[in-house]
Structures are given as structure tokens and as C-alpha cells.
């Protein structure tokens, strides 16, 4: 028998680290690019997951309302160009924690893709994004919430274009962009 301390009306949040039920990135047709679900009790099969994602996408792709409750899950989301980022938690969870995970996800992917957050680029760097997923959340536990530290841990391939082959202009350009974004933040 499971002896879990559940208060009578279940109104208080449960003191657990397993907060994230799932994270996913969808394209602008609602197809999955990458998705992870962490609670075996919720959406156990890929079929159910994809059905849920379709439903989620239909409900969210037009209205930019950043949060929605769906099928007993609180989903926070954010989109850019042709990508949609979602973080799911139980409907009985601190929404702001989920929001912080979402921004960690979005920010780290954005840094990894050098601010070109769009489908073509993400597919070219899917390995790095997979590593970022792994660094943000481990089996439902938030592993890290800070984008820069996540990126440093995903071991971004710095030799993408060897520095020698980059023109001075390119280096300057990327430096400028970095600066611009850090100011805009």
C-alpha cells in the first residue's frame, strides 16, 4: 500500500522535487521535434503523447497567452518564428516554477542556436538541444534553471567553424550580437 502524505483536500503543494511532467518543442504544424515526458503515469505511450501535443498545439498556436490548462496539466509555452516550446507540470503546481523552467529551456536553446531560434537551425543542432534537455531536467527534477550554466554544460561544440577560418567580420558580428542580446535582456 502506498503511504503518501496527502492532505485531505490536496490543497497544499506537495513537497517533492518531481515537478516537471514534460517538455517539448513542436514545429509550426504541431509536429514533434523533441519531447520528453517524465511521469510514467501521465501520457505513457507515444500515441497518447502525440495526440496531446496536437491538441495542445491547436489550443495554443493562435493565441499567445503563455499559459494554458489542458487535460489536467498546466502548460506554459512560448513561441518563436516556427517553433513552439512547452513545459508541462501538474495542474496543482506552482506555475511560476514551470515558467522559470520554460525560460531556461528557451534561453539555452536560443544561445545554442546563436539566437536563430527557428526550425531549420534547430534541426542542424539537434544533438546540442538534446543535451540541453538532459541538462535542464532529469527524470522530472529540475537540474538547472540558469541558461548560461546549462549551455556551458552541454559542451557546445566550439570548433563548429574553426576560429582561423572565420573572417574578422564574422567574429565581430557574433561579438556584436552577443553584446546586443546581453543589453536587451
Amino acid at each position, binding site marked *: 500500500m502506498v503511504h503518501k*502524505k496527502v492532505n485531505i483536500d490536496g490543497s497544499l*503543494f506537495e513537497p517533492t522535487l518531481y515537478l516537471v511532467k514534460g517538455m517539448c518543442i513542436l514545429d509550426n504544424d504541431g509536429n514533434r521535434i523533441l519531447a520528453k515526458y517524465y511521469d510514467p503515469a501521465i501520457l505513457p505511450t507515444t500515441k497518447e503523447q*502525440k495526440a496531446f501535443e496536437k491538441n495542445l498545439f491547436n489550443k495554443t498556436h493562435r493565441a499567445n497567452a503563455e*499559459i494554458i490548462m489542458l487535460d489536467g496539466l498546466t502548460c506554459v509555452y512560448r513561441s518563436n518564428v516556427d517553433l513552439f516550446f512547452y513545459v508541462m507540470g501538474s495542474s496543482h503546481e506552482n506555475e511560476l516554477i514551470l515558467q522559470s523552467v520554460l525560460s531556461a529551456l528557451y534561453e539555452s536553446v536560443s544561445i545554442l542556436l546563436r539566437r536563430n531560434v527557428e526550425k*531549420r537551425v534547430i534541426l542542424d543542432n*539537434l544533438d546540442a538541444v538534446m543535451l540541453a534537455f538532459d541538462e535542464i531536467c532529469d*527524470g522530472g527534477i*529540475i*537540474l538547472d534553471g540558469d541558461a548560461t550554466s546549462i549551455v556551458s554544460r552541454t559542451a557546445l561544440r566550439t570548433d563548429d567553424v574553426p576560429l582561423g577560418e572565420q573572417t574578422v567580420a564574422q567574429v565581430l558580428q557574433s561579438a556584436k550580437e552577443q553584446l546586443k542580446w546581453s543589453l536587451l535582456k
Partner: protein
Amino acid sequence: MSSFKRDKKEEEDTGGNPYQNLDKTIILQEARYFNETPVNPRKCSHILSKILYLLNQGEKLTTQEATDAFFATTKLFQSKDVMLRRMVYLCIKELSKLAQDVIIVTSSLTKDMTGKEDLYRAAAIRALCSITDSTMLQAIERYMKQAIVDKNPAVSSAALVSALHLSSTAPDLVKRWANEAQEGINSDNAMVSYHALGLVAATRRNDKLSTVKLVTRLAKSPIKSPYALCLLIRLAAQLVEEDDSDASQPYMEFIECCLRHKYEMVNYEAAHAIVNLRKTDRDLAPAVSVLQLFCGSSKASLRLAGARTLARLTAKHPTAVAACTVDLENLISDPNRSVATLAVTTLLATGAESSIDRLMKQISSFVSEISDEFKIVVVKAIRRLCTKFPRKHQSLAAFLAGMLRDEGGLEYKAAIADAIIALVEENPDAKETGLAHLCEFIEDCEHTTLAVRILHLLGREGPKSRQPSRYIRFIYNRVILESGPVRAAAVSAVAQFGAQRPELLPNIKVLLSRCELDDEDEVRDRAILYNAILETGDPNLINDYIVNIHKPNPVLLERALRDHIDAKLEEPFDIMAIPTEEEKQTKEDIVEVEVRKPVQVSIEEIYAEQLAKIPGIERLGPLFKTVPHFDLTEAETEYRVRLLKHIYARHVVLQFECTNTLNDQILEQVHVRLEPPQDYEIKTIVPCQKLVYDKPDSVYLVLEYPSAYFDSLGTFGATLEFVVRDYDPNTGVADAGDGYADSYPLEEFDMGCSDQLRAKAGIDDWEQAWERAERASEATDTFVLPQHDINEAAKAVCDHLGLSKNAITGDAVKEIRGGGIFRGGAPVLVRARIASSSAGVTMKLVARSPREDLAQLLLAAVG
């Protein structure tokens, strides 16, 4: 590499997705490249990500395929490329669930986890812990302890999180790492401190005292990490909830302090905790003002969090929420429809009667845009309004009917139908209009279950209305137009009219005989049965088989039938012995958006599984009822024992659910020495062989009731007897010695009337039933009750006899009209009149039952 780059260019040029149309077999072929030396990191990494992508898209690999891929992947350990190595870890984690012999990589991972490269170490720990099992854990324990206190935060976090995952399978082992984890709480790194706190709290989950210590210590020197603070607030809130005395004051102060923290996440966590803990409006004020601020935020999540928590509060503290009316009004037109819905429903719940019409107009402006879940929230809010302002029923019912006509899923439609049904049942004025709306709805309803429910309601309520014939037309239309199940329900509904309205009987008979020619067996059978019963004109028969039908709990019925087939086929099966379906308790009305609800299971269903362990249990016949558990020990003692009484027709099964709360002891051969009252006979004892720390297990005793009902009342004494064996929680080794016998006294408990009586939930026509039982044997007596208040007295009597509180009526003179079925299946009816007199509260109790001894027993139970 150059060729590969060109490949990639080409793919890009075609503008295609490099991951589109991936073929499983081709990719698994590609995994052969992993054998090439030297390893080409880019290429291999790309292949790995393709494999991972396939898995992520739900492609299924066979065990063989997964194992092959897994072993190919292990070849890549020879490469020193950081990114590739990390992808290898990721693959190991994903494939380990599917492949065989994954343990093979343990040594490579252990090497990485103790190596110099920090980027490897953290990820290697997590990969290792995901493939390892508890036997191998011993071997890596030393490294884990070191990793937990490692300087590098990534390594430390990885070790802590992995330990937490492992604690579900090897709790004792992980507990030994708690000291290392303790140090981590004070780490400068926010995440390490969060994970450490999580691990420490998890290992102490069942040890309240040390949780108290932990929270007290940390509340004084607050931690910086916002996540960790949120967790600490949750722990503190739990302590406050469990112990509401002054001792919890420091925790409350800590939580209040967090309202002023710089992170909104923490503010919200604290406000949420306070809202769910506090009892008075004044204490709530600071939390409410934080939520109020959230409502005005530019971020939708903040607004939703604020509105949602305020909405929850309406049920308990409407006045506290009333202060936020202005803020909520601003949210009505919020672009996030979820927020808008919550705001409107909250306002509806707190607002005055005058503002309803305006708010309803607002809702109807956007009701079509919101999701079904929120529509259900709106429906529920309206349903509450119907109860609160009965005078508004006209407009509310019209609104609901409008919603009923809109598009929507079954759950949404069911919620509306529920609301209208509730309206019909509660408010006599609204009955006619409500039923009319429902009639109209079933004319065009595609949900079979819903149509059946509504037909059932029409059958129940229709005959009582002024013009019952109106409804018959609607119901009979169903017989002509709908599918089998709906037709059958319609036939039953029609029969109700025939049973309750004699003036309609001839017409009903004509209708029923038409149905006797139906294609569907069920419809035909029902029609023939009802016609035959109506033909007899016997009021008892009509009552038992048409008006008040026995509705057994389907799960228990199935089990009883199975037992019956196994044990005693020759005897007739008695359906009346199955517990009836309980009336669903209506939950406190909270505006809440929760779609995933726990399934309601009756207590009998929960324990039926466990009882099956007792040898010979099937011979006892079907379970009559289970009495909810109560404690036989004080809280916070060495051993916790709870008692459950499972009542059968002639037997009772006592289930002692024992929990050992000492982690340095194992109890063996646990049994209960029982001192039953006279004439009880102990049939079987099922002892519990071994009781380890924190794993509850049960001792069962099967007793036969005394042959006379009257002797069944009595008090039982009990002692828990067992052999204690010392156990070292650190090494997990039990003491080799024999242990010593010990016993532990339990509190006494009673077998009363309420245990053996199953109250009938709400007998509609109690009066008639009472009249019909006139010829049955009757027992009467007058009592003086110790209570001073007649309300309390009435409740106490109901408790004592096992009747539901709904049975109490009357004001100055309380009358209890109840009834039920005693174990064995004999019905009992009770009438008690309670009045206060100069001597105190007196009661006249009359019990009627076909069995005289039962009637006597009821009186004895009170006296």
C-alpha cells in the same frame, strides 16, 4: 569529414529536414561506423542524434536491435570528443530501457565518473545511476558519497538527483548518504542546495521529528536558492497543517516572511501556502494582497496564478476575496481566456444577486472561445449560483440550456446536464422548466450515456409533476428513434409513470406492449417484465421492482458472482447481499480547474484485493460492508495499528493493519491475541510473518458471530504479540540471534449496531415503507440521552445506529426516519423522536423489522 559536410549542405539546399523520412534499418546500419578507427566525432554524433530522434518520435526497437545499437555505441568510449561522449551517455540512458546486458558499460562509466574531466563526471554519474541496480550500488557507494560533496556544482547536483531517483528502489542505502547531503544544503550554488534539501527531506519523509528539526534550522538561516525556498515552504506548510497549535507559529512566521522575498516564485509559493492554511480573514490579508498584485501583472502566468488561488479561496473566505473585486473586474476581458474565466466565476461566487445578469452577459460573450475544461468551470459556478440565488433560476436555467445547445464534448455536456439535474432536484420552482430543457436536449443528443441518465431522471421526477403526460411523449419518441440502450432506458422510464400515476396506467400498458416487439432483447425483456409487474397491481412488487430498485455496487457484484461460481453453485445467489452503490458525496464547492480526478472507489473495493489472501475467505459469502479504519494506538508510538472490520453475513474479519515505525527493529511472527466477548468463535488467524520498518502489513482474524443477533454487541480486548529482532539500518543486516518475544497492548474496541447495519441512502418514500412494515414486529422504548442539545443528540443516535445524517428532520422535535439492511439481509426501519424536556433530552425509539430480535438489538444498541 569534408564529404559529410557536403552531404549536409546538399540537404540544406533542398530545404528539407535532415531528420525527415529516417529509416530505422538504415540508421541501425549506419551504427557500424562506430567501429571505425579513428572515430569521426561529428559523424558519429550525428548518427547518435538520429537514433535518439527516432526513439523520441516513438519508433519501436526490438530488444535485439536495441542491444546491437547499444553495444555499437559503447565502442565510442575510445573517442575523447566531449560532445560525442555526452551523446553516448544520452544514448545509454535511452537504450538501457530496451537493451539487454547494459551493465557492461558500468566500468567505463565508473572510470568517467571518477576521472578528471568535469564535463564527463556529472553526466556519467547520472547515466550510471540509470542503468545500475541495487546490488551494484554497494560497489559505487563510495564514489557517490564523494561526488555529493564534490566542489563542482554540476557533479554534486548530478549525484544528489541520482540519489533521489535511487531512493525509490534502495531507500536504506540512500539514507546513509544523508550526512553528505546535509552539507550540500548550505552550498553557495542554488541548485546544489535545492537538490540537497530535496534529498534530505525525502529520506526523512516518514520521520516527523527530524523534519521538524530540519525546517526549524533552515527557517532561521534562510537559503538563497528560490527553488529550495519553495520546497522549504511546502515542508513548513505541511508541518503547520499537521499540527495547528502554537508550536507551529515559527513556521507560519517564516512563510509570511517569504511573502516579501525578491522572487515572485517564492512570494506565490508562500501566498498559496497561507491561503490554504489560514482560518481567519485577518491572517489572510498579506497573502491576498500579494495575489492582488499578481492579478495586475503583465505576465499571464502570474495573473493566472493569482486568479486561480483567489478562486480557490472563495469557498472558504468570500469576504477576503471581495476586497479584490476591482482587480478581478479588470481581468474579465483578459486576453488569456483561462484568466478571464476564473475571474468571472470568482466574481459570480462572491458577487451579489444584482450583478449576476451583467456577469452572465460577459461570459456569454466569450464562452465559445474557451476550452471545455473552463466551460465546465463556468457551468459549475452557475450551478452554485442556482443554489445560492434560487430566485434567479429562470435566467440561469435558460443560460444552461443555451450552453447545452452549443458544440461540446461529453464531459462538458454531462456537467451541464448535472447542473440542470441539481437545479431540478433542489428547487421545486425550477423543476418544470428544468425538465422541459432536458426533454428538449434528449431530442437531439448524440451521447448515449447522457441520454440514458436524463431518461432515468425523467422517469424519477416526471411522475411527480403536475402534467406527467407531457413527458411521456418525449420519452416515447426515444423508443422510436434511438439506439438499443436508450430505448431500454426509455422503457424503464415509461414504466415509472405507470407505477406512480394510476390514471395513466392503461396508456402506459399500451406503450409497453408495443415495445414487446422490439428488435433488441434488452428492450423487449424490460417491456415484458414491467408489463407483467404492472399487471399484478401488487404495490409491494411494483415498489421493489420498478420504483425503488436495489442497485448493487457493480465491482463487488462481479466479485461476489465469481466467488459464488467457485464455492457454492448449488445454492441460490442472493443479490440483496451485495452492498449498494453509495450516494456520491458532493465535494466542497471550489472554483478549480482540475480535469484529472481520482477515481472514486468504495472502501470495500480497496480491501477486497487484500482479503483474498485469507484462506477460505470465499466460503464466507459476499462481503456485506467494511467499516472504515480507526486507530488502536496513540499517534507517534513505536507501532501503529489500525483496525478495519469487514462484516459478512455470519462472520467478521478483523484486519489489524500494523506499521513498524522503528527502523532498527524487525518484527516477526506478528499476531494479535484477542479477547472476544462471549459466544464469539475465532475461526482463523492469519499472522504477519515479518514486519519491516515503514512497510505496513496486516494480521487477519476471522470470527464467527454468535448465533443470536442480540449477543453480537460487545467489547473486544486485543494485544499485539511478536518477536523483535534488532536490525542495523546502516548495513541492512538483521541480527543473527533469535530475537525476543514481546507484546504491545492495543486499545479496546466495540462491535456495535452501526458496524452491522448498512443504511439505505435516502429512502424517498419512508412513510410508505413504514406503513407497509406495520405488521412486522416492533420494539419501542424511551431513553434519556446525556446530550444537552437535541441536534447533537440526534447526530449521536444516528452515529450509533449507523444511519445517515440525512435521516434527521424537524426543528423543535427532531425526528429520525431511517432504515437499512442488517447483515444477513434482514431489513430494519427506525423512527426516533427526540425532544428536550426538563429532565434533559428524551427519545422515543421505535424499530420495525421482520425479525423481532433485530428490532430488540437496535434498542439495546442505544441503551
